């Protein structure tokens, strides 16, 4: 990895600056919630990418990582999270813990 690439990578780790500075580098990945199922259940993404959950249900859900972040997704609405850390995480819905998803986040 050259110095410029490394520099960009560091910038990607800074929240809020991602889209403003390097719009082409980050992707938005959609995860649909329909009838209490996260689809796709497993997503591969990079740090700086945004996950957008699209809730088609009439009830609210969350995407929650125990001891870490939580995104609330109201009924028939979408909510997003920009990934800040690399690693594999399991997430679930705090209201309906039978709903499970997984993110593989590469640096």
């Amino acid at each position: 990895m050259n110095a410029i690439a490394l520099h960009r990578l560091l910038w990607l780790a800074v929240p809020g600056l991602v889209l403003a500075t390097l719009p082409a580098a980050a992707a938005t990945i959609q995860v649909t919630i329909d009838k209490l199922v996260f689809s796709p259940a497993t997503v591969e993404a990079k740090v700086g990418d945004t996950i957008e959950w699209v809730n088609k249900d009439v009830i609210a859900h969350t995407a929650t990582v125990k001891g870490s972040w939580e995104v609330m997704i109201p009924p028939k609405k979408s909510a997003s999270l920009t990934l800040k850390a690399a690693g594999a995480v399991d997430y679930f819905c705090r209201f309906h813990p039978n709903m499970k998803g997984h993110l593989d986040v590469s640096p």
Partner: protein
Amino acid sequence: MFTRYTAALAALLLVSAAPFAQAADKPTDPQIAHIAYTAGVLDIEAAKQALEKSKTKEVVDFAKDMERDHEAVNKQALDLVKKLKVKPEDNATSQALTKAAKEERAKLAKLQGAAFDKAYIENEVAYHKQVNGALETLLIPSASNAELKSLLETGLKIFQGHEQHAEHVAGMLK
């Protein structure tokens, strides 16, 4: 047919106080719609009691989740029966559920603080378990309309989530 179902149910109630009949004749779609809607209403009433009485954040949050989800599902159920022109029909199972819930509410009304929290959450676990069992073994298999069946199946997933959520809250209260 329905008399036999009711009689079997009444017999079952005498021994176990379980509002759902397992054997006997299948409930009809109008009866199933009534049972499912009633089960939702009763859990909303239980949630309202918890919101009045509990001061524990986890319990209050759980009760709010129950109120919100069951209201949303029941609204969907009402929209569906209207669309299908099905008139929900009161029946022995709905009545037994209502009677049991009324007794539970009276029991809970006498409790305060941690004792109330524990009893409310434990009853939520038991209640969702009971309703989910009935959905799986009786109501979903008996439903003849495909849209009603599909709504009940989604309802089952939601209420299984509630059961797990209630178990989690019960674990936190210990």
